[in-house]
């Protein structure tokens, strides 16, 4: 590095510099770099605008065209396919909907910070759902399960990854997150598994107890009913608190004044039920206010009865005799000795009163918050229903359209990958000694998948099975191969095998124009 002191001033105005500002270019560059460097594209699915930029730039493709075998330089690699992980901003006590139509239900203390305290602010979580054979192929997690020495292949009714952007956030095992996965498969023969990242295998959790008739419609109704019940409870609690607060305010302690001997005093036999604040001051008398324009002659009248009503800091005494009445404004007073003795007691009572009112206020704030959360959650369920369901079920007694859809519920107490699966063995109807070629060259695959399109089932085939490659000719079979560099090829004409014992699968490269999970699903009709 060297130093140059230049005569030439290099000046560019802000306006000129700002002409170079182009966020789309930045995103495109990031997308290209990310695609080239890493398969696990966590964030690009964030916006369709971004995705559109990515596809047009990354692939540099002409307009949509019918598939033909891709030339080598136009061969799709799985590395080109953006990951569709979804970033969710979530918080405790909320129900969050994912873009694939699942629900995540957070209790008030489901998410904890590093000190084990319930989070009070929203946090970012990553969520990814797998509903399809293509999702499973693109997923790095093996879709096989070993039990007692036998390898089973998962027929998935739905799978998801849930992780936190911030490593310090934990899930409270006492208040797990409920993930209601939008499963596309009905049926009761599924188990729940969690992937063990360390052991690199699936751990059986439990049988999936979702009843076959527990449709999405029922699950939503139940969830809504639960949240509505919470809402009603909170409303009741809030009402109780309001009543309690009103009562307490009636009992707000007072301190009678010290008497002024020059003024007129009235001794009354008080009903303390009506004036509970005076119950502490049995010797109190009412002192007529100086501006009352009081007629002392009235004290000689024998009145039938007297009522006392609080009016801000003083009282209005109303004297009745027959049809006539006479009102006198007055305040309760004590003599000097009594006043001194009662003042301290009053302060203690006042402190206790303030504490009671403060605690009621706090409880009211807390209950109001919970009420808002419950209302928000009910709204979220209705919104979910409006957005996802062809017939809006939560407020109607209609379930027909939703009978085949199930929200499978996972209780998640740690981050990771979860699966709802039925383990299947490999088909055994027919076997063939398999060889794979692309053009005239032998193809070496990192992974070969046998897909039964009619069943939406996928088997992961290892090289050890190629000598005795199993399949069921009655199924709509498809082979998808992924080589070491991620290039994707396929074969689908199983009728050509007939009763041959040896067969060369002439794999066709997939064109890179299908560089998205969605277009690949469409391409393979999965």
């Amino acid at each position, binding site marked *: 590095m*060297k130093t140059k*002191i230049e005569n030439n001033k290099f000046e560019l105005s802000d306006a000129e510099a700002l002409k*170079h500002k182009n966020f789309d270019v*930045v995103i495109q560059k*990031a997308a290209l770099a990310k695609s080239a460097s890493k398969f696990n594209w966590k964030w690009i699915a*964030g916006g369709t605008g971004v995705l559109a930029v990515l596809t047009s730039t990354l692939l540099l493709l002409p307009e949509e065209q019918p598939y033909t075998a891709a030339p080598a330089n136009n061969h799709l690699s799985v590395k080109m396919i953006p990951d569709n992980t979804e*970033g969710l901003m979530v918080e405790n006590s909320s129900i969050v909907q994912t873009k694939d139509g699942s629900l995540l239900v957070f209790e008030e203390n489901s998410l904890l910070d590093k000190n084990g305290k319930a989070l009070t602010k929203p946090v970012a979580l990553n969520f990814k759902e797998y509903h399809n054979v293509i999702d499973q192929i693109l997923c790095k997690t093996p879709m096989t399960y070993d039990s007692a020495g036998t390898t089973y292949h998962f027929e998935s009714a739905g799978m998801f990854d849930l992780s936190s952007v911030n490593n310090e956030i934990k899930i409270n095992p006492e208040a797990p997150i409920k993930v209601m996965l939008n499963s596309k498969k009905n049926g009761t023969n599924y188990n729940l598994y969690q992937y063990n990242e360390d052991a690199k295998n699936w751990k059986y959790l439990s049988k999936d107890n979702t009843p076959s008739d527990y449709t999405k419609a029922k699950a939503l109704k139940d969830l809504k009913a639960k949240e509505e019940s919470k809402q009603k409870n909170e409303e009741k609690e809030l009402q109780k608190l309001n009543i309690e607060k009103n009562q307490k305010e009636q009992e707000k302690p007072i301190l009678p004044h010290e008497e002024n001997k020059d003024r007129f005093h009235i001794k009354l036999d008080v009903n303390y039920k009506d004036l509970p604040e005076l119950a502490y001051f049995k010797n109190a008398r009412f002192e007529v206010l100086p501006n009352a324009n009081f007629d002392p002659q009235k004290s000689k009248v024998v009145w039938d009865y007297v009522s006392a009503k609080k009016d801000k800091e003083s009282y209005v005494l109303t004297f009745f005799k027959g049809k006539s009445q006479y009102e006198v404004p007055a305040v309760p007073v004590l003599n000097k000795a009594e006043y001194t003795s009662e003042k301290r007691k009053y302060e203690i009572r006042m402190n206790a009163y303030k504490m009671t009112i403060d605690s009621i206020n706090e409880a009211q704030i807390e209950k109001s918050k919970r009420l808002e959360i419950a209302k928000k959650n009910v709204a979220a369920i209705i919104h979910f229903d409006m957005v996802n369901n062809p017939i809006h079920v939560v407020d109607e007694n209609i379930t027909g359209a939703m009978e085949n859809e199930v929200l499978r519920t996972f209780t998640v107490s740690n981050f990771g990958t979860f699966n709802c699966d039925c383990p299947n063995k490999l088909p055994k109807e027919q076997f063939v000694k398999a060889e794979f070629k692309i053009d005239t060259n032998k193809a070496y695959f990192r992974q070969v998948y046998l897909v039964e399109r009619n069943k939406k089932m996928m088997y992961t085939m290892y090289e050890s099975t190629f000598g005795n490659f199993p399949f069921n000719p009655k199924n709509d079979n498809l082979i998808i191969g992924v080589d070491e560099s991620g290039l994707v090829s396929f074969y689908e004409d199983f009728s050509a095998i007939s009763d041959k014992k040896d067969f060369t699968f002439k794999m066709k490269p997939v064109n890179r124009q299908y560089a998205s999970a969605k277009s690949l699903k469409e391409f393979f009709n999965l």
Partner: protein
Amino acid sequence: MQGQNQYHISTITQEEEWEIIAKAINDPKHFEKLYERYFLKIFRYILNRIREEQITSEITSDVFSKAIINLHKYRRKEVPFVAWLYGIARNEILQFFRKQKREAVVFVEEEKLRHFTEELDEVNKEELFTQMKKALEQLSPDDVEIIEMKYFQQLSHKEIANLLGVSEENARVKTFRIIKKLKELVNKM
């Protein structure tokens, strides 16, 4: 010397900035706010070293795209976000020079230096300017880079620290020593 008000920095708090970063980790479209906020700063920093508008434009977009990709690695407790961006920018500049097989250059514009010396000594400004010019040429380019960052680009010690990969205190001490050295060189003339 260029005034600091040249940068159109929107008024968002550090907390708001952190929230944007957290969102942008998952969804890069949120990064646009940060891009809007720091584009001019980073562009001018690069332009000052590269001195070619189109290349500067390319490198600036590279800096921000790398920031998007590596956003999850950013730790706010370690360094302010803008300093982190400067760090990426400096690496990109050095990489550019390496690729071009060109020697990295620290440019100091005469006018900026003149302005700087005027502020130091109004009376003997011409003499000081000549001395300062010679003295700067005697400093190592690394030292001149720090002077350039601190006094001509008006970066904070924290920002310089991140650019150089040293602690803030170390950046402060380095700056102090270079200024001392510069004074000694000028006094000898």
